[in-house]
């Protein structure tokens, strides 16, 4: 559905996007990650038809953005960064304007679709209000309603939950999740739990270059294992004993948690069995033994260092 090859775009001396490749298949929801200034917004703007690339090819729905930009814009739903909206328009006026600009159909069809979209975005109660009077959460929903009004098969969302409080953000996330399966979605964000909540796959870019493109579950697998061990009392020479286990590369702790003493072991392999055997043979009161899943934050941090 979306295919980006060798994409490059510069602003003066700065290459905002510098040779990015990725493709997104039908029905996928892909998280587009990167620190601020990584080139996410620039990439989305090129896909949405707001910016031209300097080089590289962009194909959306099998259409080339250089020759079929208008057709792409007709079929893509786009929520720009910061969600700009016409403040003086009422919600219904705004959606009707988009409807007319997209030349979607008669007034009757419009009324029905507007009702449908307002219901799915939770906008019924504010449909007659000026957009300028709405809270940020509602504004975001208006933006999303505008992006899905024409039932596009491809959705480009640029930080759809930025600046929202946790409850508003969850509502917007639920809304996006409800579109899953029917649409191909590329969602830029730097809120990592959001990616966990919504996406199947992540594309991470940093300084305009691609640093990762894989399913979320594969991303967590790496060469280093982190294991948390808890004991009910403070060990004498505990550090040395744990460090002696084969494969252990580093040890943190102990840190106290209530009456427990917690160590974090970094190892080249899964050493939980060895830790258990050590505890059993020395009669150490083992209360916790757990392999940590690497958080997306850590992965993100490593990749964008």
């Amino acid at each position, binding site marked *: 559905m979306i295919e980006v090859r060798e994409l490059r775009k510069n602003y003066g001396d700065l290459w905002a996007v510098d040779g990015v490749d990725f493709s997104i298949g039908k029905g996928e929801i892909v998280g587009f990650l990167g620190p601020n200034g990584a080139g996410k917004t620039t990439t989305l703007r090129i896909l949405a038809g*707001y910016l031209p690339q300097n080089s590289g090819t962009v194909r959306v729905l099998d259409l080339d953005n250089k020759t079929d930009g*208008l057709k792409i814009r007709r079929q893509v739903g786009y929520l*720009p960064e910061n969600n700009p909206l016409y403040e003086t328009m009422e919600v219904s006026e705004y959606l*009707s304007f988009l409807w*007319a*600009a997209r030349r979607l159909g008669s007034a009757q069809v419009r009324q029905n679709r507007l009702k449908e979209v307002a219901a799915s975005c939770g906008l019924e109660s504010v449909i007659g209000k000026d957009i300028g009077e709405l809270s940020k959460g509602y504004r975001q929903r208006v933006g999303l309603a505008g992006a899905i009004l024409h039932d596009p098969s491809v959705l480009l969302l640029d930080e759809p939950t930025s600046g929202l409080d946790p409850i508003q953000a969850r509502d917007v996330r639920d809304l996006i999740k409800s579109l899953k399966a029917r649409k191909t979605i590329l969602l830029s964000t730097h809120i990592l739990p959001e990616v966990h909540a919504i996406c199947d796959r992540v594309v991470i870019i940093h300084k305009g270059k691609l640093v990762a493109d894989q399913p979320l579950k594969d991303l967590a697998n790496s060469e280093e294992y982190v294991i948390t061990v808890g004991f009910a009392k403070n060990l004498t020479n505990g550090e040395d004993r744990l460090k002696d286990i084969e494969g252990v590369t580093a040890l943190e702790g102990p840190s106290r948690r209530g009456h427990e003493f917690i160590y974090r072991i970094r190892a080249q392999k899964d050493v939980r069995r060895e830790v258990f055997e050590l505890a059993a043979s020395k009669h150490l009161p083992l209360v916790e033994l757990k392999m940590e899943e690497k958080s997306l934050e850590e992965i993100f941090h490593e990749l964008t260092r």
Partner: protein
Amino acid sequence: MITTHHLSGIWVVAKKDFWEMMNSPMAYVLYAIFLLVTGYFFSQPLFMINQANVAPFMELVPLILVFLVPAVTMRSLAEEFKAGTFEILATLPLKTYEVVVGKYLASVAVVTGALGLTVVYPVTLEILGDPDWGAVAGSYIGNVFLVAALCAIGVFASGLTRNQVVAYLIAWVTGFGFFLAGKVIMFFPYPLSDVINFMGFDCHLQNISRGVLDSRDLVYFLSLASFFLVLPLMRIEKKLRGASIQGNR
């Protein structure tokens, strides 16, 4: 029932811009100022020298328009750039010319509305005396063409910046330049003076307001309008599509 489905993108954009302007207090403040100033120049000869004549008022309208039109057009593109809403417009399946021309027509409509309100002055004269309706009609037609040119200059200026004040000043300076051109020809040697005279508004407006609808004068205003509309069109097209205008993109 007419549905917007059948109407082109130009109409959709024009309608949006027109109502945005009419829903803001700005339009009414401008209308009030316009009527106040024109009203003063209309009533002064009427009461002071008992003359039922629209000429003194009509001669001033172009100068007032040079000041007024940039105030209407300054938000046209600049505000969309500033508020970021241009990104919405640009990513809709609209062609660039539909956006630019739509915005242009909206401002022409708003200013023509202000001009239309002044029809009350010649109508008053009809009650009091016997105005020369040929001259009146000619003046109005001339001024509508002038509005067409000034609005294009305004949209052009608005497309250069995200700052409305800057847009106003650029449009005003440009418009005032054309306004002044016909008034300073005595400082230039022939044939330069003729060229400058032809470039300025004055000689064309004079012809029309005398009741002479010469196609050269109409072509003058329309070419001026087209020229100043093509400039923002090219600029935006380059920004969005990275190339000069190309049909269907």
